[in-house]
């Protein structure tokens, strides 16, 4: 990503290199129109970039990378190698005010409907009785947790923090690819990327009227405080992390720091006497709300995975008794099951009586025979995904797969049809990134973050992830993706 090789820095170059050789290659490009002209909202940025000398852009990219390194936003590649920053590209991705208005409305609608769904599915199950979703789908879902049946989370809210993945197809239409209602990560990169961009590109930033994202940590704290048990006016909030070796540890510590709350590990907490406490230098202190960043299955060895070393034995009893707020509630993963995802438009219709504002990507459910036959016959055209994985693991992009991989996946699907879904291979939209001394288009997605508390807040921005390999459709950071700042423009 960026200027990794030693590109010659010709500071005095009379003709600064710009986008003249940039080719959208028939894809929907976030910055340029098919005729090669910048989209109207991108004009000030394009003008500014082409006005920079090549050496200047190189210098800014390097200084941004150094800032990220010094901030310690790094990961170890394959164990003991040198630390590297998460790849970051200096060219921001811009979202127009009109597009954003629709995205925002669509995300608010989804998180509200999905919360109603979660509360229903773990209690009355009206939606199953109404025949909107087949019983089988829920019964067979690995993410449906029987331990959560009958739970009554505070305010009836289950998912307080969501980070949906949105993609754009050839026509520029936004689709929801995943809802991510468990522990979506990446928001700290949004906030830190923005800090770096403000340092490295101050003028353009002011010119473009970019909406601020800095309010997120305040809104997150309010969302968490809202979950305090009844009668507690100034609750003690903590962020629960698996520890410094977790790949998202930076984010956990960053959010705790930005909110001014404690960052705790499982061993810092204990459930005793009907309450959860943390061990402090002055003895035990009660904790009222936990933003937990460990998976459901590790949360409480007495309720879930008995081998968990990360969780707090007995914490679920305190939660059930209403003496602790947890964000997100355990059990939300059932709505992330990609088979359940396929029903979200019906879920919205059922609970809200509205049509989905943001469409799903059309999804074939392999457990249904008609769909399965279609999928098996079209493996070279479809993307096949396991129903319960995230992070881009275990999936197959049909058009890019070898015949051997396709036949392996055909066997997987036949052996366990419930565990697979398939979607058409989208021609994901692209955005320019800096590659050595020029720009190239790369496929991108967008992960905005939604908070649901007293009201619903969609942070105007989000994590734009870019595939770093030319032509690749996989943008996940665990699969070598990089990130960009996302500029949502004011109207």
């Amino acid at each position: 990503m960026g200027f990794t090789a030693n590109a010659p820095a010709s500071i005095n170059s009379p003709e600064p290199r710009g986008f003249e050789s940039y080719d959208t290659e028939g894809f929907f490009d976030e910055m340029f129109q098919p005729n090669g002209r910048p989209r109207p909202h991108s004009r000030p940025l394009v003008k500014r970039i082409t006005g920079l000398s090549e050496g200047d852009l190189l210098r800014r990219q390097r200084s941004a990378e150094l800032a990220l390194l010094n901030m310690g936003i790094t990961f170890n590649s394959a164990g003991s190698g040198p630390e590297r920053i998460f790849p970051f590209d200096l060219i921001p991705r811009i979202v127009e005010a009109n597009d954003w208005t629709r995205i925002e409305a669509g995300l608010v609608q989804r998180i509200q409907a999905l919360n109603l769904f979660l509360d229903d599915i773990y209690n009355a199950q009206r939606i199953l009785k109404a025949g909107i979703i087949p019983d089988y789908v829920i019964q067979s879902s690995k993410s449906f947790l029987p331990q959560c049946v009958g739970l009554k989370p505070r305010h009836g809210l289950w998912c307080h923090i969501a980070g949906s993945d949105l993609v754009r197809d050839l026509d520029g239409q936004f689709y929801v690819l995943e809802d991510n209602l468990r522990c979506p990560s990446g928001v700290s990169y949004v906030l830190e990327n923005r800090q770096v961009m403000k340092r490295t590109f101050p003028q353009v930033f002011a010119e473009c009227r970019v909406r601020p994202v800095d309010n997120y940590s305040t809104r997150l704290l309010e969302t968490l405080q809202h979950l305090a048990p009844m009668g507690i006016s100034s609750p003690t909030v903590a962020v629960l992390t698996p520890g410094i070796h977790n790949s998202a540890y930076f984010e956990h510590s960053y959010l705790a720091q930005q909110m001014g709350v404690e960052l705790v590990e499982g061993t810092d907490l204990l459930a005793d006497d009907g309450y959860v406490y943390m061990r402090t230098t002055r003895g035990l202190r009660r904790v009222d709300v936990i933003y937990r960043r460990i998976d459901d299955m590790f949360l409480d060895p007495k309720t879930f995975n008995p081998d968990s070393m990360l969780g707090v034995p007995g914490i679920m009893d305190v939660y059930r008794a209403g003496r602790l707020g947890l964000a997100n509630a355990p059990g939300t993963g059932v709505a992330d099951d990609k088979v359940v995802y396929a029903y979200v438009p019906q879920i919205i219709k059922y609970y809200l009586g509205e049509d989905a504002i943001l469409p799903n990507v059309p999804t074939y459910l392999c457990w249904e025979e008609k769909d399965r036959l279609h999928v098996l016959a079209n493996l070279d055209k479809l993307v096949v995904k396991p129903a319960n994985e995230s992070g881009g693991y275990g999936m197959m992009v049909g058009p890019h797969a070898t015949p051997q991989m396709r036949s392996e996946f055909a066997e997987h699907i036949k052996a366990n049809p419930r565990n697979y879904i398939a979607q058409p291979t989208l021609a994901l939209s692209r955005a320019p990134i800096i590659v050595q001394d020029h720009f190239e288009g790369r496929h991108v997605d967008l992960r905005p973050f939604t908070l649901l508390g007293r009201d619903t807040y969609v942070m105007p921005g989000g994590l734009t992830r870019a595939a770093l390999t030319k032509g690749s459709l996989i943008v996940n950071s665990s699969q070598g993706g990089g990130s960009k700042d996302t500029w949502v423009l004011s109207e």
Partner: protein
Amino acid sequence: MLSRVANSIYWMHRYIERAENVARFIDANLNLTLDLLPGSEEQWEPLILTLADMPLFKSRYDEPSRANVIEFLTFDPENPNSILSCLKMARQNARAVRDAISSEMWEQVNTFYLFVAAYSHRELQAGDTHTFFNRIKIQSHLFRGITDDTMSHGEGWHFGQLGRNLERADKTCRLLDVKYFILLPSPIEVGSPFDALQWKALLTSTSAFEMFRKRHGRITPNRVAEFLILDRHFPRAICHCLAVGQDSLHQITGSRVGTFDNPAEQHLGLVCSQLNFARIEEIVSFGLHQFLDNIQVQLNLIGQAIFDNFFAQQPVEDLDSHRRAWTISQSAGNLMTRTAGGKE
């Protein structure tokens, strides 16, 4: 404050202080070697005695040459007290408490580590050495300044002060002990003719030379020992370090200095009061080495008592507890009591 967090802040400061001390000692020794008479031998072995583990060194290197000792004390990842190891641990502790310290502090620990780590991959050139070790000292000063200016001076900050000052007292104590041990092996010889350069190097490595001159003028072994043990105003003198540490400990607990509520306060108070009322002549006639040895034992006891009282959980990695044999003083804190096991 979380016990784990207090523990990590305490160790983060200790490790950074330790790294700075290692750099100081190497730099002072390098400086000293330039003044040696032709034909006399460079002395690198005492540095290992002061700062690390001799058996570990011997298992990894054949002779205590300048290059071997500098490599061992600066970059060797197998030496838990090398500068690089200390900074790695400081950074790991800082990472574990990022939310409790300021971003500026974290960035400083991080850039400090990255700076030394970058050097570990290339040969340290002879011409760079002074600049390199001096930069380490300055990075540590920077960390201290940033800490003082960006972190609230509350409980966490006081745990940091406590850790830093106990570490510093320990290092000054060891340095003095080894220098006396090498230069003047028997207590009777204290006060006999000495090599002025060696004493000056000792003062320089603790940045004490100029302040010593202002206070005492002429360099004599007794005055050097007095300055580094009993001076109340010099920031690296044992008495001063422990007084500052004591103040922070009482700020944490809320009890008055001069009283105690827990074993840590009791031990530290006992040592402080003896240092406050001791005279160097008594110490020398009692036996300087034995006296310093007793201080080390007491510092270990204080460290253990702090751990038991406030942390009671293992830190990220408590390297010291593996290394130091635990000895309970039979003298109940009296620094002027002979104990078994001290090297006479």
